[in-house]
């Protein structure tokens, strides 16, 4: 278990033992791929880190002791925000991939490959932004392939694919902004999608696949200006509550088949030009109010009407 310090050019003996001896990207890559161990912390300073090969680690943390990569903006380890977050530039050819129980905080990623950032079981991605600009279909920005993972307070964009793809089961996507993608958030069975904003997606705002017999949750999201707001490709069992389903062009919510176990209620449907639902019983608490966003087209979803059921439930006024 070690704490290591990383800057774009490195410093001193580049051992990573302190900021005065920070690793450069080359030393970081070597350690990351060959020596990372449970409990390790890499503090990565703001700056651009250019990948000259895939940044891959097949090493694992543990549930109790993850491997941590934390973006910071100064030598006091202040957590980096916005464009101060260290930027891993995969360019057109490379991506970042880790195995089990890694935590990424306060970082930015860009790329065009199958994934920009991929993790496996127990991955946590917090306060990160990933952007995949590839025109090839179904590539991901944040791509999670393992169970028990969390994507929190992140931004995902994938021009022709998945902004945030949670392809295994039992994952959580919470408090994120997924937008300008083919599919904003993709989840499999037994997953939870809550308090996210999903904006301008050319197929689905939230897409549900996977197991049909165990519950997942889609609650308290704002899903705006997608083709279909929420889509389930089969009769997945989900509880869908308190969502703003607004200005989606084909349909608000489409379930491939209705199943008795589903619960839809207290969702606000407005301006879904092709209709609100297919194979969905809306519930007695459903509303159809104008959402009152300040400037949804400009990405400002504040200003929810105080008489809106959604706002009342959330205590927003």
């Amino acid at each position: 278990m070690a704490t290591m310090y990383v800057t774009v050019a490195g410093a001193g003996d580049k051992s990573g033992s302190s900021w005065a001896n920070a690793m450069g990207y080359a030393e970081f890559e070597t350690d990351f791929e060959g020596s990372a161990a449970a409990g390790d912390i890499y503090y990565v300073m703001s700056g651009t880190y250019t990948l000259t090969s895939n940044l891959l680690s097949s090493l694992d943390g543990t549930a109790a002791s993850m491997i941590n990569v934390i973006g910071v903006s100064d030598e006091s380890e202040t957590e980096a925000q916005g464009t101060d977050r260290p930027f891993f530039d995969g360019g057109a050819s490379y991506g970042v991939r880790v195995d089990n129980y890694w935590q990424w905080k306060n970082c930015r990623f860009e790329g065009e490959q199958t994934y920009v950032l991929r993790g496996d079981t127990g991955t946590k991605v917090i306060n990160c932004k990933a952007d995949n600009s590839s025109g090839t279909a179904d590539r991901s920005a944040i791509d999670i392939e393992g169970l028990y993972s969390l994507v929190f307070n992140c931004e995902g964009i994938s021009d022709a694919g998945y902004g945030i793809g949670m392809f295994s089961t039992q994952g959580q996507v919470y408090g994120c902004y997924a937008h300008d993608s083919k599919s904003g958030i993709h989840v499999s069975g037994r997953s939870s999608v809550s308090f996210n904003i999903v904006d301008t997606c050319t197929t689905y705002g939230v897409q549900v696949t996977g197991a049909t017999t165990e519950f997942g949750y889609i609650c308290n999201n704002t899903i705006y200006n997608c083709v279909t707001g929420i889509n389930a490709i089969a009769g997945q069992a989900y509880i869908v509550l308190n969502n703003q389903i607004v200005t989606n062009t084909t349909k608000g919510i489409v379930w491939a088949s209705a199943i008795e176990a589903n619960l839809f209620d207290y969702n606000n449907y407005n301006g879904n030009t092709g209709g609100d639902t297919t194979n969905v019983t809306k519930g007695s608490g459903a509303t159809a109010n104008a959402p009152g966003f300040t400037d949804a087209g400009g990405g400002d979803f504040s200003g929810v009407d105080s008489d809106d059921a959604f706002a009342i439930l959330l205590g927003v006024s």
Partner: protein
Amino acid sequence: MAINEKYSYKSFGRNPAALKTAIDLAGTIVGSGFSQSTLDAHIFPDTMTGVVFEKCNLDNVYIPPGNTVDPSCSHKRFATQNDLEDWFIDGADKPVEPIDKKMYEKLKLSTDPKDIPVTPLVVSVTRARLLAIHQLDDVFGQLKKAGQASVSLADEATIKKLYSLSDKDMVLVKEML
């Protein structure tokens, strides 16, 4: 040679237009990204000379004669193949190996170029394999909870069809669970 601070540790891959007319490309450029998705992209001035690139990503970028690309750079050619994944290619534009060869090996997919489909897939070969693994994992999990030990032939047939998997693929996917 002095490090060119203006062009070092920066990302230019998505916005290369200004490079073409830049007059201050000189010295040593360190740790910047220039890679392009289109082959042999001419993003630098054809008259640029004397620049040394170190630790840069120059994949698919044409570098005019008279400049130096240090071995610490990546300067390879790649293109998307019919399996919807990107492969490094040779001078004749023939695929050599997938960029993420380790992922192919992990998923027990062939890295031999002769196994690339002759027509484009609908879903990339790695995505299809991962989805099939997740789906079979779900099916196995549900059957296990129900006290059964194996997947029915009907379930296997559905998954094979859905993800265009061969019998050989199916055996490999089941081995990976």
